[in-house]
């Protein structure tokens, strides 16, 4: 039996139409990808796979993707006019039909450049009902939903990093919901994705950033439905 966690999975999401997977999910994916860029994005490539490639115009997937990069949430009424907003903010964008291989039919690969010239690549899928899964970030295989506060580290693959980060979270009374650890090669670079039950205060983030092995740290907050201003 499938498990429904909350009645608001049934009455919801509150979103901009027309499609939870092609519009709301696309916006959410782009919002998460945009957060990874770590600065103001000035150019965005959207490599569209499968059903995204076939129907992106009629479902407003294109506008939703641009809106997400601009930091808009899936329920933001400015989604519809995101192209104008992009022009205003100096964001150029391109939609590129792609074959990304054996992936979910609604998959997009983002190639984002910031004003300072930094490039970030993120791949993710819209898996239905507005839910998404991020599957790759800058060459690292990952798997998270963006529904939790998500902490993403890039650190040197040395002893004690996991324990140190977990220790800081515990000291700050933050419970870990899920934890995923991967690395490029032994002794080189590693990455942790930690989904937590509550938000991290800036103080906890600073403590983690200060760990000697830490290369970079990102903290992505979930979209909170209660914050919608209607």
């Amino acid at each position, binding site marked *: *039996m*499938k*498990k*429904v*966690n*909350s*009645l*608001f*999975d*049934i*009455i*919801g*999401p*509150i*979103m*901009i*139409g*027309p*499609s*939870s997977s092609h*519009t*709301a999910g696309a916006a959410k994916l782009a919002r998460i990808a945009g957060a990874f860029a770590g600065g103001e994005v000035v150019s965005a490539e959207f490599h569209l796979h499968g059903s995204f490639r*076939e*129907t992106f*115009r*009629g*479902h*407003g997937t294109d*506008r939703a993707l641009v809106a997400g990069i601009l930091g808009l949430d899936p*329920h933001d*009424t400015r*989604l*519809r006019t995101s192209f104008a907003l992009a022009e205003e903010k100096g964001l150029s964008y391109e939609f590129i039909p792609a074959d990304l291989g054996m992936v979910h039919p609604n998959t997009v690969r983002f190639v984002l450049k910031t004003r300072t010239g930094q490039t970030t690549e993120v791949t993710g899928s819209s898996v*239905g*009902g*507005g839910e998404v899964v991020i599957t790759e970030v800058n060459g690292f295989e990952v798997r998270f939903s963006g529904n939790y506060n998500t902490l993403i580290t890039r650190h040197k693959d040395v002893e004690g990093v996991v324990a140190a980060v977990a220790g800081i979270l515990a000291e700050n009374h933050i419970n870990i919901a899920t934890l995923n650890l991967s690395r490029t090669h032994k002794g080189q670079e590693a990455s942790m994705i930690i989904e937590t039950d509550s938000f991290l205060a800036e103080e906890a983030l600073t403590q983690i950033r200060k760990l000697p092995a830490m290369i970079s740290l990102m903290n992505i907050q979930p979209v909170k*439905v*209660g914050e*919608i201003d*209607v």
Partner: protein
Amino acid sequence: MYNNGKELLAICREQNIPLWEAALLDEIDQTETTREEILEKTALALRVMQGSAGDPGEGKTMGGLIGGEYRKVKAYKDSRKTLTGETANRAMMRALACSQSNASMGRICAAPTAGSCGILPAALITGAEELDCGEEEILRGILTAAAVGKIIVQNATVAGAEGGCQAECGAAAAMAAAALTEMAGGAPEQSLHAAAIAIKNIMGLICDPIAGLVESPCSKRNASGVLNALSSADLALAGVESIIPFDEVVDAMYTVGLAMHPDFKETARGGIAATPTGKALAKTIRG
């Protein structure tokens, strides 16, 4: 905790509480939130629904297949005698408004899906007018609807790609029928009879959107979906019972959905989408 209609009714019976309250208590338990927080979120959903059910104007939708239906129905019902009456036309007009809002990149509340987002709001708003319900009673209706939707998701599906339109608009109509029955003071059993009747009325309906877009025939199926909900609730409130229990009807709907050919499950390869006109429209839209 309840996994099906039988268990939900047992909770209502044992604790002598209405359906909405059983749903609320379970939600508090499952999500570790407070009653106030849940009611606040429910009220937020209602405000979004009310917004999307208002006049969306005559602007065309993303695919350009629909638009302006709300105004047509409103002008029609305001100017002459209608066949189904003022209430039914008001309900249809609102369901059409939600569908148009959705297809125009307006803000909606999926209930349970974006494609079927017109049925529950139209039923709640119109039902509340007919039954003189205040906001508190409408929120109880939404909680009832959510409980019914949860049971359908857990035992079947509400995705058109998995179960056809009977799963999306069928679930929405079942949820709305149960909500209306609750708002009208019906017993928990009557709400589930109404939900069962609504699903039976639409069983087997395929999902065949022109060009794969959530526009046509989706919008009109939202209009007929709210009528399905209203009539199913009226029947249940009159004491008419579904001969087959709700849980068995949900199981049957799922079995039918799984047996449905993929051409008839949101792929735009069958039914209305595959007609010569449907195909020509798709070609124009995709350019």
